[in-house]
């Protein structure tokens, strides 16, 4: 037996859970297609006819894709597993609840990151240049973890009905894209609008992406990164603490 139940041991087990979730919940044709198409059409409906340049559109488009894909499946994984009674099986294994949550977050992160590569590749093919590729890649990874963690927060209410969780998630996800500088640059928002935008983690990723692609940003980069990191930690802590309370009520 190779178990000391320390952080490395539990991390290995959370990767196992993530691989399982990707295989069962994410690696499905309709999920991938919907993950791409939905944000594309939503984005196009707000951008067509507004004479936006590609270098302005791409950061917002990328932010939307990353946000929607990383938060699309993670809210419903726990309700699905509870409904299928596989959650009980998982919880009886030698894994902490935090390990299960990290596994779900990792799966969602991997899905969001993989799908977001599509607009990045399209942008590069169309001649867009990224000023600092490493920083940009790091921002995508950090934002994907942040959004995946937020997706997990949506699944906290102890309902095993995926539609209910989706409704809760939609009530947050849609307003967020309108206050995050995707369609309107933050500098052009009124002061109160800017104040509201700061409560959205998507704002900071979009700002980093604009800096990397357009060379200009609303906030200093280190503020954007710190804010994303702060939101990630907050979402993870909330998810882990609150799931401790609600998870037994799902069984």
């Amino acid at each position, binding site marked *: 037996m190779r178990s000391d139940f320390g952080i490395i041991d539990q991390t290995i087990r959370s990767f196992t859970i993530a691989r399982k979730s990707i*295989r069962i919940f994410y690696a499905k044709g309709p999920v991938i297609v919907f993950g791409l198409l939905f944000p594309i059409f939503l984005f196009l409906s707000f951008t067509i006819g507004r004479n936006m340049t590609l270098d302005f559109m791409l950061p917002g488009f990328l932010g939307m894709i990353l946000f929607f894909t990383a938060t699309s499946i993670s809210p419903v994984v726990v309700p699905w597993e509870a409904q299928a009674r596989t959650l009980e099986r998982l919880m*009886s294994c030698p894994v902490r609840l935090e390990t299960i949550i990290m596994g779900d977050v990792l799966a969602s992160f991997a899905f969001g990151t993989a799908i977001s590569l599509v607009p990045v590749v399209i942008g590069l093919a169309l001649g867009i240049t990224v000023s600092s590729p490493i920083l940009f890649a790091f921002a995508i990874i950090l934002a994907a973890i942040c959004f995946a963690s937020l997706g997990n927060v949506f699944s906290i209410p102890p309902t095993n009905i995926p539609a209910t969780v989706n409704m809760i998630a939609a009530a947050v996800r849609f307003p967020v894209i309108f206050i995050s500088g995707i369609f309107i640059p933050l500098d052009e928002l009124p002061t109160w609008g800017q104040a509201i935008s700061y409560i959205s983690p998507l704002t900071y990723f979009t700002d980093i992406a604009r800096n990397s692609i357009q060379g200009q940003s609303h906030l200093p980069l280190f503020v954007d990164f710190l804010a994303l990191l702060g939101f990630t930690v907050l979402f993870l802590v909330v998810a882990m603490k609150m799931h401790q309370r609600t998870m037994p009520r799902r069984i």
Partner: protein
Amino acid sequence: MNDGFAVRVKNLTKHYGQVVAVDHISFEVKQGELFGFLGPNGAGKTTTIRMLIGVIRKDHGEASVMGYPAGSLRAKQLSGVVPEMANAYIDLSGWDNLMLMAELYRTPVHVAKKQAEVLLHALGLYERKDSKTSTYSMGMRKRLLLAMALINDPQILFLDEPTSGLDVQSARAIREMLRNLRKEGKTIMLTTHNMDEAAELSDRVAIINRGRLVAVDTPDGLSITAGRVSLIDVSFDQPVDEKILARLPGVNRLETAQAIEDAEKLRAQMAMTGTSRPGGVGGGRGQMPSLSGRQISADGNEGAKRSGNRFRFYTENTTQLVNALVDFSRASSLNMNILNVRPPSLEDAFVRLTEEKSREK
């Protein structure tokens, strides 16, 4: 570290709101023992098992598994679990479900593969190992769940109604596997509604009712001390008036052939639902349940005269009643084609104990 005990439970309690699901229960399971955990639906069996496997938290009391606190990672690592409902990942094949479990228990891959092959062969699933579990029958899924519970070669197995709702072949395969595991020295804690299964497999059984432990003993010990009442099946060569038979010394209750069938059905139903009725199987003298109007009390107080030639007697004094039956048949010039004495069963003990406690409440 675990003093020869695989499970130790002391004053374990769990509330759901105002409802006390498990009420200060205490028991121990020895290492290598097959421990039956019986009770009607809603008695607290599954809640107890769930606390022991760490799926839900206890409110009060102490519980340890293999010397480690119940629900701790070390306890879980040493345990195998078959929950009540089938819960393999239906989008994965049987083989992939086993490999997933092996990874979650961090069983080395080469060991897991070997173990998986052995288990799949033993449980008759090898031919279908690559099929998605969604295509499996209920019996196959239950067998797969048992294989999943055994993939990490656990020291203790928790089985929550592993044979419930299964066809005969699947139930047999699981029971056979449990017998072999017991021979190998594994500790097994088993909940079941099937009294014959519990009596056949268990070294000791505990009976829980309404969250409280009402008895812990060997199946035979429980049958004798709690069952008390023996059954005597008799068939005469001619019809006999039931009222006369009901007055024989030692008769607690008497049933006709039709009533025997009805009673069996009702007993099975009661064992499943945990409902109680006044009197009941093995009830004291004069406590006669009303079953289809075909039962005659010891004082013979039944309106319509009924007769037949097959009867079942319930008695707490077998010798006295057998002697009385022999004397009666001689005196009446009757022949007894069948005289079958059945000792008290675990089922009788179960029904009696769960009824008594229900009445006390």
